[in-house]
Each structure stands twice: as structure tokens, then as C-alpha cells.
């Protein structure tokens, strides 16, 4: 399947969501044009409720009228459908398993803990920061093994795990700023520090990951609104 017309591919999303970011990066890698339908904060469109009745959450990819939900599932779908474009997952089954493992780790362990830093204080906050840092050190080790000296987890080009983890960088920086903490640092995670720079400069990623300042402002709005979940897909 080569070119699709723009109306064939729609993304239901919102600019602050790291999960939505994943889908957009993946589509950019494949040079797929799409229509971005921004959901308003605090309300869910009819289209969203219809397209994702189970979770009622973004992102949703609608391709030829058919909806797909759950960001990592969407990214794999994109990789499989637009197979003539650059590959997102590596070709070797073991390498694919490693990337899927760490992508799930980001979702299950890293991001949920990162979010807690915002509202935690004192000892509890220090404990969570330590937990996140330890997790990032594990990712650093995974990066060293996976990248084999190249810029990305995927090697020369951005791949699945780069997308899964890279999409979190906006919020990671915002949480560092708001919490006055350092999560990625040269001492413990030197590879990831470099990786983050390379990732954000990449053509497929530029302009997609929101500015730290914008996210900090957005976080303040969320706090005022109370109970609106922070970028959950």
C-alpha cells in the first residue's frame, strides 16, 4: 500500500499527549499524510466516542474509515500497512522482542512513576525520583546494547523503542522543570542524554514533541481543572 490520500488517514488526538506523539512520529517516518483532529480539553467528540467506545481515549488512528486504538498497537499497524517505507520495528524477532519489552516497560513503569513526581513531596518524592532514575538506568543499559554505538535504539534510524520512549521526552523535561529534579543526566545516563538530543533533532520528530514551557503551562491548567488525567491513552 503506497500513497493514501490525506482524508484516508485521520488521527484523533491532542498536542500534549505523548501517546498521540507516538502515532504522529510513526506516520512521519512513513511519510504518510494525515488529517489531525484535535480533541478539545475536557470534552470528547462524537467521533472519538464512536471510534474508541471501549476506552474513549486518544490517540485513535482512523484509516479508510476503520479505527485503531492504543498507541503502540497503532504504531505496529502503521509499520505493517506502510511496509514499503522505512521499517519501524527491526527485522530480527529477538530484537523486536527486546524493543517491545522496553516499550511496555516505559508504559508500565517509567511514565506512571514520572507523573507521580508532580504531586509528590518530601521523602515520597525523593523515593519516586529514585525509582524513575533506576528505571532510566536500565533503559540506558538497554540503549547501549541495542544501539551498538549508533544514535538510536533502532540504530541509524528511529525505531519502535525510540518512538515509545522518545514520545515521553516532552513531559520528562517538563516534570524535571516543575519538580526541580534531574531525571536524565550525563553521569548516570550519558547515552540517553545524547540520544534525546539526536531524537528531537530528527526530521520525523521535529515540531511534534511539545515545548517544555508549553507543557508546564498546560500542567498548570490541568491542576486547575482537577481530575483530568495527564496524557493517558
Amino acid at each position: 500500500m503506497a500513497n493514501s490520500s490525506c482524508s484516508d488517514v485521520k488521527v484523533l488526538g491532542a498536542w500534549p499527549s505523548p501517546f498521540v506523539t507516538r502515532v504522529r512520529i510513526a506516520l512521519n517516518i512513513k511519510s504518510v499524510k494525515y488529517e489531525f483532529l484535535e480533541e478539545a480539553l475536557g470534552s470528547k467528540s462524537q467521533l472519538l466516542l464512536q471510534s474508541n467506545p471501549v476506552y474513549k481515549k486518544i490517540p485513535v488512528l482512523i484509516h479508510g474509515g476503520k479505527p485503531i486504538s492504543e498507541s503502540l498497537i497503532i504504531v505496529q499497524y502503521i509499520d505493517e500497512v506502510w511496509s514499503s517505507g522505512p521499517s519501524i520495528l527491526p527485522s530480527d524477532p529477538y530484537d523486536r522482542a527486546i524493543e517491545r519489552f522496553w516499550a511496555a516497560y516505559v508504559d508500565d513503569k517509567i511514565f506512571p512513576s514520572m507523573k507521580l513526581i508532580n504531586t509528590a513531596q518530601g521523602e515520597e518524592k525523593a523515593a519516586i525520583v529514585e525509582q524513575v532514575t533506576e528505571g532510566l538506568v536500565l533503559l540506558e543499559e538497554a540503549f547501549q546494547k541495542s544501539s551498538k554505538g549508533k544514535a538510536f535504539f533502532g540504530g541509524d534510524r528511529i525505531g519502535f523503542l525510540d518512538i515509545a520512549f522518545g514520545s515521553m521526552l516532552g513531559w520528562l523535561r517538563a516534570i524535571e522543570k516543575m519538580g526541580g529534579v534531574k531525571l536524565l543526566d550525563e553521569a548516570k545516563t550519558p547515552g540517553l542524554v545524547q540520544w534525546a538530543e539526536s531524537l528531537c533533532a530528527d526530521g520525523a520528530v521535529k515540531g511534534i514533541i511539545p515545548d517544555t514551557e508549553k507543557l508546564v503551562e498546560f500542567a498548570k491548567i490541568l491542576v486547575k481543572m482537577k481530575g483530568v488525567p495527564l496524557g493517558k491513552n
Partner: protein
Amino acid sequence: MAEVKLFRAWSSPFPLRIVWALEVKGIEYDMIYEDLSNKSSMLLQYNPVYKKVPVLLHKGKPISESLVILEYIEETWKSKTPSLLPGDPYQRAMARFWAKFGDDKILPLIWEAFIKQGKDQEEALIAAHENLKYLEVELRGKKFLGGETVGFADLTFGWLANLVSVFEEIAGVTLIDHEKFPLLLTWMKNFMDAPKIRETWPPRDKLINHFRALRETLIAKEPK
């Protein structure tokens, strides 16, 4: 000595999925049983991040997390039928969606309903039923979620067929009733009777004893 080894605990539903996948595809493997209260140094070496079962060891390389392992099996033994995932990317996305849905939205709630009592149990059950409704709808017109044969999503929901009646007997509560979920109950029966699945069923009386003891321990730990 098979080049595939599977670390499992006899009662745990997650490694059982992998057993089913390997059996259904006719892949030779050695089983290594772990005592989860006394984990082997091998397990800790192969899964240092989570220290859990299942771990699949293939040619000495370990893979953890059951859904990751299922994808690995499907991709590595491509020529072994039946395929666990369909060929069409949209159908594959759907299979993955339901598998994840089961693990995120059904399994934890059924588990809650099993180990809790009173109001906590009631609430967990209501939430579980809300989510099971989606599964009931999805089963319309299908023998299995994978179509005519057991597939990726069926394997991840297999624990329902294996454990729900065990939980119901122990806790004395109906978790999945015939009136609300007729298709699901039919699916559970079809799954249990599917080729290669029945042979690997853990013995029911052992499961009852194991989970009864586990439930009692967890209830005793609850703050009064």
C-alpha cells in the same frame, strides 16, 4: 534437549498462555517449574527487571512478558501452523487490542472480585462486567476471537476458561453468569476443548487448593 525452555509456575495463567502457544504450534520445549516463593538464580538472571514467569529461553536468549513472548513465537516459527495472528494488519491490530484489553481491564478486576469481600468485591465485579460486555459483543458470530481456530487473543483470555470456575467455587460467588454472558461461556467451553489445550490443563483440585490458600492469606492481610 530442546533449544526452547520455558520457565513457569504450574498454577500461573501467564506462562500457561505460552505453554498453549508452543503446544498448538507443535514446538518442542523443555519446561522448568519455578517455586515463586523461592525463585531460582536462573530466573533472576534471565528476568532481572521483573523476576517473574514466564520466561522463554531460545538458544540461550531470554524473553519475558507473555504478550512479547507470544509475538516472538509467532514471528520465529513462521512456518508452524496454525498462525496465532491473522495476515491482515487491521485484524492483527484488533487481536492485539483485545489481548491488551483483557490484561488491563478484565483480569485485574476478576482477580479483585476473587480476593476481596463485601463492597470491594461487589464494585470489582460490576466493573468487570462492564468490561466483559465488550468481549461478549466481540464474540458474536465467532467460535474463537481468532476465527475458526484459537488465536492470539484467545490464548490471552484462556485463563477465564481455566480459572473462573475455580474462583467461583472458592469464593462462593458467580463471576460470569449464563444470562448476561452466554457467548463468553460458550467460548470458554470451546477453548477448553480445543486441540492441544485440554492436555495441558493444570489439575482442578490442585488449583482449588492453591488458590483457596492464596485467597485466605490475602484476606488475612487486609486491614480490618
